[in-house]
């Protein structure tokens, strides 16, 4: 086995005795992924006015919502929760990211918010359903992964912790998606209030048995800096963030922030808020979020679905019944096609013999 000479990088590695060369594999994977690009779906949930859109724009330094129409109060009374998904392709240093942001306007607006998360749960389930269908299909080359990989849940900083709506919602989706709780508009809190609120929220989450996304511990062979960073990140959940894309001049430099009569809040200053931490977490753990969605949430969903054929809930019901029938049909078709191939192969072997 001599792989060292095959895929480029010839001559870079010394021809030491016993060196095979598959240490080169991560580079190959890296190159392939860069070519393929990444897909990531992020869902943002929270009451209106908590700065969700501003934060998304700040995080990805784009303007995902160029012409926003904010409905008046009377219109809000009639509205139900809607799901709006917008996709952008961002590129940085040759790496392409296909980012889908799923917004949920109307969440928590109504006087009676009893039904507001049914729509959201249905959406998440539909994405899983679609992926399951594609995965069980014949042509699996171009499966588009629209499953929700991460959900930022925005907690209002004005309360004393979690509201009943927050608790109910998180309990309903913690088995379907990775929840990252975020304290919005954190510039309204002093440092002490922020710490108190974070502790309060973590206590309530533990008390109610809500499973939020846990950052994986750094491996023991990573360098100290990375380990320290992971420790700091883990200690800062939930992140208290501020979003802004306005440039303000401070001490001669232009930085993003919010200008108040009493001072300037800097978005990227770790002393002012946890924005940088949130961004770091998202970027360094994007892969992990996708993996957890695949290995944990999707597998849970899949085993639930396949265990009880035809007894799924909501709009997915007819699809479910058909799904199994289609599955069996497709398996039968596969078998038929394989038989045909064997027959053809047998014929072809016989033909040259004839000639």
């Amino acid at each position, binding site marked *: 086995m001599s792989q060292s000479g095959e895929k480029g990088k010839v001559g870079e590695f010394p021809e030491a005795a016993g060196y095979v060369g598959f240490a080169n594999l991560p580079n190959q994977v890296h190159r392939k992924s860069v070519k393929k690009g990444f897909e990531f779906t992020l869902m943002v949930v929270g009451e209106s006015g908590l700065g969700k859109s501003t934060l998304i724009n700040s995080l990805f330094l784009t303007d995902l919502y160029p012409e926003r129409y904010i409905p*008046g*109060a*009377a219109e809000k009374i009639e509205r139900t929760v809607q799901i709006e998904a917008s996709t952008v392709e961002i590129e940085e240093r040759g790496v392409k990211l296909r980012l889908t942001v799923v917004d949920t306007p109307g969440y928590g607006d109504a*006087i009676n918010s*009893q039904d507001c998360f049914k729509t959201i749960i249905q959406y998440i389930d539909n994405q899983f359903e679609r992926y399951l269908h594609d995965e069980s299909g014949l042509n699996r080359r171009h499966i588009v992964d629209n499953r929700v990989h991460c959900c930022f849940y925005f907690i209002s900083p004005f309360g004393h912790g979690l509201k009943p709506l927050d608790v109910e919602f998180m309990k309903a989706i913690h088995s379907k998606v990775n929840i990252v709780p975020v304290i919005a508009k954190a510039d309204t809190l002093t440092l002490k209030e922020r710490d108190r609120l974070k502790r309060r929220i973590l206590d309530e989450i533990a008390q109610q048995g809500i499973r939020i996304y846990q950052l994986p511990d750094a491996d023991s062979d990573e360098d100290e800096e990375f380990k320290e960073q992971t420790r700091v990140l883990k200690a800062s959940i939930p992140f208290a963030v501020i979003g802004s894309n306005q440039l303000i001049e401070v001490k001669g430099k232009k930085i993003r922030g*919010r200008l108040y009569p009493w*001072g300037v809040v*800097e978005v990227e200053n770790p002393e002012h808020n946890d924005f940088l931490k949130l961004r770091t977490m998202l970027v360094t753990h994007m892969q992990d979020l996708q993996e957890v969605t695949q290995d944990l949430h999707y597998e849970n969903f899949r085993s639930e679905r396949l265990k009880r054929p035809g007894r799924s809930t909501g709009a997915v019901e007819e699809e479910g019944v058909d799904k199994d029938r289609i599955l069996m049909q497709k398996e039968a078709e596969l078998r038929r096609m394989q038989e045909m191939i064997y027959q053809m192969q047998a014929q072809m072997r016989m033909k040259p013999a004839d000639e």
Partner: protein
Amino acid sequence: MREAEKSMAEPQSKPDPDPKTEATVTGLDLFGYVGIESVLDQMRRKAVKTGFEFNIMVVGQSGLGKSTLVNTLFKSKVSRKSCSPSFEEGISKTVNLQSVSHVIEEKGVKMKLTVIDTPGFGDQINNLNCWEPIMKYINEQYEKYLKEEININRKRKIPDTRVHCCIYFVPPTGHCLRPLDLEFMKRLGKVVSVVPVIAKSDTLTLDERQRFKERIRQDLWTNGIKVYPQKEYDEDTEDRILNDKIREKIPFAVVGTDKEHQVNGKNVLGRKTKWGVIEVENVAHCEFANLRDLLIRSHLQDLKDVTHNIHYETYRVRRLNESNLNGIGLSTPLASVNGTAVRKESESNL
């Protein structure tokens, strides 16, 4: 004689001038000092002795800083702060009203201040009809006063537990009013003076604050919600000018705190953050001072008058009509409609 009576009645409240005598009043110039103005001192002394009563209700979701604001307004710990470290209660399942009374004193003037808190308002998932306990409470206070008033042997000074002012806390979303806010203010604007304020407004920049206020004013106007000070109750141009200035600024964007910090060598009430100190009493930072002036320094008596003359009278008329229609009298003197009812009206117009 008539002139003396008129000037005596002016500082208190403005009763309707008797139509028969108005035409005969002429202005007289005094050619010496008589001492009529000392009647103001006499009234002042009497008022100081009896003291004032003021009942204020605070409504809003939990965590918007209601208790802190009331404490800051009256510079004393009149309201139980629900975020004290020992507070372990969760969000209550129904709206229950808690009223706390204190007597605070300043320069010999005593005020019996009652703060009615409404924990649990708007905190549930399903907030339908969460305003009903509040409406019930307000109407109950009117009922109590009415019963006292039409009593045969009634007290010299009827204890006034009616809600004079209801401060409604709007969360600083920066967008517009929520359906819950609209519903509440629509219903309560008819029975009590509602003063909306933007809570925790240190989260809005000045531009956002301006836009938010305009949005709120527009929403209020489109929905026909009248908040204090109402345009219809302006009595003369002087009032109108003053109230117009206020109306341009409502809802006030407030910040409350009871902590003091050092700024430029002075001790100021404020919130200290890493990027600066938000001074509560600085009008460039927030409008707390405007709210305080409105509520306490300039319009306190007016709030009480509006409650007594307008809201209470509306309630009274409705109740009297109801009792006449149904025949369930509140008490026997009310049995004859025209005779005694009219007499009672003129007496209660003090």
